């Protein structure tokens, strides 16, 4: 799965995107975030405040209970501040 990071999340994790193979026990966005957080300190730093993390799957905003079954691209970012 292609994983994109933006803004502060990108800065803390230190890269704009990476490919991550989804472990078989991961179903939802929430599972995936927990997986990342447990993987390495930088993910913990960037993502542990889940209230402040928004998710888009294949370019649509989704909730944390969204099931990642056919997702090709997941984007992880802070609340948007455009306009």
């Amino acid at each position, binding site marked *: 799965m292609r994983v*994109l990071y*933006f*803004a*502060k999340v*990108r800065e803390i994790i230190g890269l704009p995107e990476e490919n991550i193979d989804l472990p078989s026990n991961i179903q939802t966005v929430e599972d995936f975030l927990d997986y990342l957080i447990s993987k390495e300190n930088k993910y913990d730093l960037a993502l542990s405040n889940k209230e402040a993390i928004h998710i*888009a799957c294949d*370019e*649509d*905003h989704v909730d944390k209970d969204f099931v990642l079954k056919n997702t090709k691209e997941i*984007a992880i*970012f*802070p*609340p*948007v*501040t*455009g*306009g």
Partner: protein
Amino acid sequence: MITVKIQKEKFNPQKILKNAEKGKEYGALVSFIGSVRGETNNGKVKKLFIEHYKNMAEKIIYKTALNAEKKWNLDYCYIIHRYGTLKAGESIVMVITCSKHRKEAYAANEYIIDWLKINAPFWKKEIFENQSKWVEQTL
């Protein structure tokens, strides 16, 4: 007619307004321009950096315009948003909405900006003399 542009380059609000007015007989035209403020709560802004998620931004803005067009029966809708590094005073975003009556043009214009601020994947970072800071969402 809907046009959506997301670009790094500066845009010229006068030209965009002129194009919107070409052959116009719609009655009401409302335009909004959002610019980089020179001063915020955190001090004097030197530059503003805008990051974005290209494909999703285009998709969301176009969908927002489409919703507005249908809901308020717009004759014309133009949205442009910049990304990259901007200086104080430069325009970030411009929205033009045209309709027969003014109420619709105002409502659609404000709806588009409100929706864009909540949903379009852009992130602003203010760059001051000695520090920089990601802007926090205020709704």
